[in-house]
């Protein structure tokens, strides 16, 4: 049994590395290409409107003549930027709060737990709408909104981890040796936490993108000139019934694929980092 497991785990690791590099490459490519593509490629060219997908225009053109392939890439890069930024900010908030809850006094812990319940008690979209409203709509509202709604589960995770670590022997020994809390935090706990946080960010990130798309779709996000996938999809809905289906389908599929891949990456990483679950779960993919 053990031998089989070992083989499996080895293979699993290889698969994972391969997987990660492919996805990483795709994501980075999407991101960079969005930045590098000149504005002109996705510019308005009204004489070219509503062309079906062809070799010249891989995803076709929309009702203003913009090449959809480039527009989608640009949109993707914007969405990715927003998603990554928001996820990182969220992760930082979550880490700080989680640690504060676990390391602080009982009162702080209860307060923070209550705060987490509070934020989780309002449906995400409504909170996003409120925050976007408060910031007058636009990019700022979007970033703040997504960062402010996604930190909760990660914070809970961090808190649980730190609580568990606190009770470890080597921490107690460190304390006896006279190290301050801060030192213990930085030198013992953070390295331990880091992989968990990384997985958390990666798993957070697709949600962030989807929420960004949803909120832009409703009309709260970026202006139509600075496309993110949500806007592209939202605008394209108008033309669906007139038979122009490609502005809605292709960007949507692209979004799904990226989200799917990042999600799977996060899952695999989680399995790998947590040997216990890796052993329990015989099937991985």
């Amino acid at each position, binding site marked *: 049994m053990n031998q089989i497991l070992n083989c499996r785990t080895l293979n699993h690791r290889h698969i994972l590395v391969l997987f990660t590099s492919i996805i990483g490459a795709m994501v980075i490519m999407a991101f960079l290409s969005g930045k590098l593509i000149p504005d002109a490629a996705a510019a308005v060219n*009204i004489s070219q409107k509503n062309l079906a997908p062809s070799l010249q225009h891989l995803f076709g053109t929309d*009702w203003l003549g913009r090449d959809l392939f480039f527009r989608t890439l640009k949109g993707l890069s914007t969405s990715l930027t927003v998603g990554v930024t928001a996820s990182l900010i969220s992760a930082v908030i979550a880490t700080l709060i989680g640690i504060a809850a676990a390391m602080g006094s009982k009162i702080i812990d209860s307060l923070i737990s209550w705060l987490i319940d509070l934020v989780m008690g309002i449906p995400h979209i409504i909170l996003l709408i409120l925050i976007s409203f408060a910031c007058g*709509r636009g990019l700022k509202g979007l970033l703040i909104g997504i960062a402010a709604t996604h930190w909760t589960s990660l914070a809970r995770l961090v808190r649980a981890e730190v609580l568990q670590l606190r009770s470890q022997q080597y921490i107690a020994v460190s304390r006896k040796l006279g190290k301050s809390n801060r030192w213990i935090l930085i030198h013992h706990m953070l390295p331990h936490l880091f992989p968990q946080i990384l997985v958390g960010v990666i798993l957070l990130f697709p949600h962030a993108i989807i929420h960004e798309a949803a909120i832009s779709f409703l*009309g709260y996000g970026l202006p*139509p000139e600075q496309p993110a996938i949500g806007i592209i999809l939202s605008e394209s809905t108008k033309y669906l019934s007139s038979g122009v289906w490609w502005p809605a389908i292709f960007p949507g599929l692209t979004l799904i694929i990226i989200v799917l891949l990042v999600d799977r990456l996060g899952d695999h990483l989680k399995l790998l980092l947590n040997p216990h679950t890796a052993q329990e779960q015989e099937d991985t993919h």
Partner: protein
Amino acid sequence: MKIRRSALIELAFITLLITACRTSALTGPADVKKDEVIIAISSEPTSLDPTQGWGHGTTPLIQSTLVEFTQDMTFKHDLATDYSLSDDGITWTFTIRDDVTFTDGVKLTAADVVFTFETAKDSQSSLDLTFLEKTEAPDDTTVIFTMTQPTATFLGTIATIGIVPEHAYGDDYGIHPIGSGPFVFVQWNRQEQLILAANEDYYGTVPAIKKATLVFMDEDAAFAAVKSEQVDIALTAATLAAQDIEGYILHSVTTVDNRGMTLPVQPAGKAATKDGYPVGNNVTCNIELRQAIAYALDREYLAKVALNGFADPAYSENDGLPWNNPDVAIETDITKARQLLTDAGWQDNDGDGILEKDGIIAEFTCIYPSGDSVRQAVALAASDQIMDIGIKINVEGTSWDDIARRMFSDAVLMGWGSSNPYTSYSLYHSSNMLRDDYYNPEGYANETVDAYLNAAMQALTTAESYEYWKLAQWDGETGTAMKGDCPWVWLVNIQHLYYAREGLDIGKQQLHAHGASMPLIQNLKEWTWNE
């Protein structure tokens, strides 16, 4: 457990079957009844109270008006049997019919007219009755209006204010109106539908359409509704209308519903509005720049490319109306445009294709309400063309809130157009400058033009007033036209487009004003189905 599982499946199956069988019962009457009509429009009224603006600019279907503005742009008697104006132009005397009752059976008297106008005046709504001093009813069939000054546009205003019953008026009149018009109010589900029925006791010709349902949808949802044959007539946008739909005919109505760019005429940095929003733009305040844009645009091409041809060139706010000065029309002349700029000192010094002068780059932002595909297309196409003469226009979509803040310092893709020349007054008179009502955000003021506008408002006859309106546009030397002060660069008059089911006769459509929803149904009482 076993039984339960299969029972569940069976239950599901049966439910599906029943649902399928009842599909016809689910959609309501499948056959189009030949005296009912379902209309999909995009703008929903906020209230059905004429004193709060319902029917303003068109017709308040549920209530009646004293006079009616016909398709030939003359006034026809409606509730009024006769009217006259005193020699000094201050007193209007109307005699009204005595055989009209509201749909609750109570007779309509002059007292109701007085009540209506007093309430409308106090409400300070979009109706402008500031020139009305008082309204009196010496008897049941006579109404006397006393103005503070001669107001040539008063008849036009009267034609759109419906008379409300004094005895049945309350706070919720706007959602449960009673009137004496050709239609009776039945039901209103906000943001969904408004149902009207024909008024069988109407004093005029009872409408052929017995039941009209107005459904409120965006153009794209309306398009889907037409495709699935769920509505009889739907408003659509030029960007969607290039398609043929079986069973439906595309009607296009010429309009005076125009689109143009307002360009701030004041330089930046000095003033702010009373709410603190910045005023002025250092690029557009140069008149030669504005005029260059006006001359460089090929409006026919704009209409063709951006709007699939469903638009006509626009040269002013009132093309085609009797008070329009034909001299405002200009020819596309790129050479002239370039010349204007060069003469004023604009040059491209750094070779990037954009002109500069005295350190100012010929670049500015034009904003439009995001979600309006027509304005977006027009703005983008225009900015494309203007790039050729070295001026860069950055087109940006944003919300109306934002526009309300930025319209004093950025160009805006605006639109107006009405059958009442009072619009011209609102657009250009200096007293209306920089207010939050979207009429004159560019900060335009010209004394000569003010004088003409005042004269037009106080003219004693319509013909005389028309002369003054025209002079305000261009008197040979100055004016609001593009060849004059050019505070607006007019682009196109969009056509209002409707997909109508074959057999639906929507009567002779008047020249439509701004907004395609209400103008479509203003002649609802003349609609009928052809067998």
